[in-house]
């Protein structure tokens, strides 16, 4: 597969490490009243869509950026690639 890196252009997926669902960015707050339940969901429950899927890839043999890649799990078509850092910030992770 080829991942079109937002800064570096198309690069072979062999340079990347796959992690999984980009919901891993949304780590719950530890002091939330239902933190146990939220962390359980965060740690163990994943959607497994047949279609568009936002997932985390790490450009380990590259610029060491974590990316959020939107990939169709049926066709492997990649429709969007963003820096995970930007995605995290846009989801309100400011610390």
């Amino acid at each position: 597969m080829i991942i079109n890196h937002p800064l570096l252009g198309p690069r072979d997926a062999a340079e990347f490490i796959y992690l999984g669902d980009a919901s891993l960015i949304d780590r719950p707050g530890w002091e939330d009243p239902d933190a146990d339940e939220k962390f359980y969901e965060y740690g163990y429950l994943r959607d497994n869509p047949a279609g568009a899927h936002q997932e985390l890839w790490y450009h380990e043999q590259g610029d060491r950026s974590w990316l959020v890649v939107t990939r169709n799990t049926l066709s492997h078509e990649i429709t969007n690639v963003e820096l995970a850092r930007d995605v995290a910030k846009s989801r309100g992770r400011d610390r």
Partner: protein
Amino acid sequence: MSQVNRINGGLIDRSKVLNFSFNGRNMQGHPGDTLVSALLANGQTLVGRSFKYHRPRGILTAGSEEPNALVHLRSGAHQEPNTRATVTELFDGLTATSQNHRGSLEHDLMAITDFASPFLSAGFYYKTFMWPKAFWEKVYEPAIRKSAGLGRLSMKDDPDRYDKGFLHCDLLVIGAGAAGLSAALTAARSGARVILADEDFTPGGRLNSETLSVENMAGQDWARMTVAELASMPNVRLMTRTTVYGAYDHGTYGALERCTDHLATSDGKPRQVLWRIYSKRTVLAAGATERPIAFGNNDRPGIMMAGAVRTYVNRYGVAPGRDVAVFTNNDDGWRTAADLVARGVNVTTIIDSRDAPAVMNIAGVRHIRATAVMDTVGRKGLKSVTLTSGQVVPCDCLAVSGGWNPNVHLTCHQRGRPEWRDDICAFVPGGPLPVGMAVAGAANGSMTLGAALAEGHAQATAQLDALGVKAKGDAPTAEDEPRACAAFWHVKESTKRAWVDQQNDVTVKDIKLANHEGFRSVELLKRYTTMGMATDQGKTSNIAGLAILAEASGKTIPEVGTTIFRPPYTPVPLGALAGRCRGEDFRPYRLTPSHKWAEENGATFVEVGNWLRAQWFARPGEKGWRDSVDREALQTRQSVGICDVTTLGKIDVQGKDAAEFLNKVYANAFLKLPVGKVRYGLMLREDGICYDDGTTARMAENHFVMTTTTANAVLVFRRLEFARQCLWPGLDVHLISTTDGWAQFAVAGPNSRSLLRKVIDEDHDISNEAFPFMGCGEVTVCGGMPARLFRISFSGELAFEIAVPARYGNSMMDVLMEAGQEFDAVPYGTEALGVMRIEKGHAAGNELNGQTTALNLGLGGMVSKKKDCIGQTLSQRPEMNRDDAIRLVGFRPVDRARKLIAGSHFITHGDDATMSNDQGWMTSVAFSPSLDHSIGLGFIKRGHERMGEIVRAVSPVHDTEMDVEIVSAHFIDPEGERLRA
């Protein structure tokens, strides 16, 4: 015997003679020949025996689809089985032998299976060798193995070299036939970066085999001229002898280039190169494959594809027979007759299954219409054919054409499904095609020359347009030859076995039987009958097979569908897939900075990941590794030892928020670690299980140096970047690995300070008061060399780790040993390191095994409940904090002479040794030279409350057990006085 069947013409160089041998017989051919064309020239039509029935077989095709003409090529370690002789380029000194016979090719002892064929129908093995069960391993399997398989391996290491590579282009053109050349020429003249790949050694595809004209010149000449133009252009990479074997995601293709297979020797160069081609756009112009018609005894040597017969005559100047007959269901077969007659080869008869007038007038050739071949005669070479009319036609070569199948394979590698086209009786590429691919020419069902050239040009133009490049030039022109075809798959009147898949010996009857027994899906048919398996993957047999299945099951061909085409298009040797990664080059090695010193000083090395680490340093007179390891551990505890610990991961952590960041990734607190201090840190996974441990030193307010375990260095870095970028992107923290940058040595033992005092420059105070346990700082050594000093201990002794820039590492080892001479300092390896850490009760990989918690390790108190950190919340789950949780403790054998066994499970005395009574397991064991007996670490339920209890340590694997006593994990200096000295 000379080249009796050689005729005039063809693309061979008659000025040079190549000598070769087949089954020990010396023969001659010319440059431009394949092994098969040379064999035919020498009158050799019998070339092998079939897989299952050991039927005499000849040559069916002139291409990579060949099911029969498979040989052992070369000899000795270079011998390669199942080489398709139809695409083996002839070279001087070539040796080949035939396959699949015991005794000679002419008198195969295994041919008896042919007469037993009534018992060997589809599914024979499944049905027969079921019973009795006990017979399978001892009787059936050895017997089947002996007779199964195609060809023989040399059983020697592959002496050849292989390589891999990466190529990039705007347009990849697969196939250099009429459509491919037209496409490549269009793109090349437009300035695009073009790769043109073709499996043949002479580009041109069918143009080389036909007598058709392009641009008013002979097709062969047009191909040669076009190839010369392409070869001269800097933006074109012309790759002959290169098979694009797979279409992968996003325009990535796999290709195998055969670099030296056409030479007598590789001369030290890679024999084959496996290319990964990254293309922006692709034109697939893979052509088409002619298919046979199934009729009784249609596998005799001398029965060939009609197109192949033309190839041998037109391209190679070889007459495949003296008296040729043609059997066809389409117009194209007629051209074989016409071309042969034009070359003076005797064609007696055209048998056309269609009830239609002659396609063309060919003088002296009899046309028999609405008739088929029903049976043949001639066990080792064709003598005559019998028609459905009962008529017998004498001939030594029968050219058969059942129509042409577009080579759709690569269009299906991304799960595209082909579509049926009634007008050409064949499947053509359906959707969806691999991203960026367009198909042109016969591969796309455009079966005539004029159409192929036009489509090649048009597809290239469209592909360039998508890249924003304007195509230049017009399509080359040619006339369209007659190509009408009528569906006709097998001759129903035949009572004899009619072969569909000659490579796997599958007959029409087998397919009908499979259908009768319920294997009606084409995928099941394939697995039940083995049709379409092995080296040719059914290129000549699949479509006929599924047409017969359709007929038998009352479905249409499109309803039956095809099996899924997967890479590779043609076989790819495992050697090519391995590339350079063999033996010592299997993976890279990482060497520690003092590797050279260790080599010179008797080290035995052990692989730790990619690292080679000194395991122990043997001295003269030592009888085994234990002697060395015991000595190293004892001498370290008694005086001082030195160990290269560079392999531990080192990560430079800097930033205003570095401390806060560490506080989040470590379970224990780091916020208030003072500058100049080191702290042991424990990392958890988010699920609360222990992940990694190490020490982190605060070198300055905003600067930390983290260490990780050797094994997890890369993983921890990755995870820290995840935390930094995805979880806490608002923190000012920056990471960079310095693992390789610093040569780091543990200097351990009561004399370690005295030793270092001699090396560290005088202005640095390293006394216990100025530089206490868990202190760290920057120092200089040997007169101003910058170094880092950490007072940390893995051995439990007074110890330091000292780091210098890696390029000084080997010299530093020398210096430390020289300075340590007066203390009898010893170098120690990973074994002594392991012994001492077990003696001290430190957890390592065996204990941090991805199943254990901080509580299990006795480090539960380290997990701060006052702050957030990765793993904090889930580590508090009740099930992971049960009262009877396993705890890390020490063990010693009650009988001190016995040796503990790692992996033993603990059973309470009085209980049976069953899983339900399992109390835990032994993780690490060592012989302690300090205590003079075997010691162990392990996890056992409530271990910390069971000191002194005797339990059974049971090892069912070793079929042994012993009584062991639960003791503190700290076998040496439990109060920690030594390391604070």
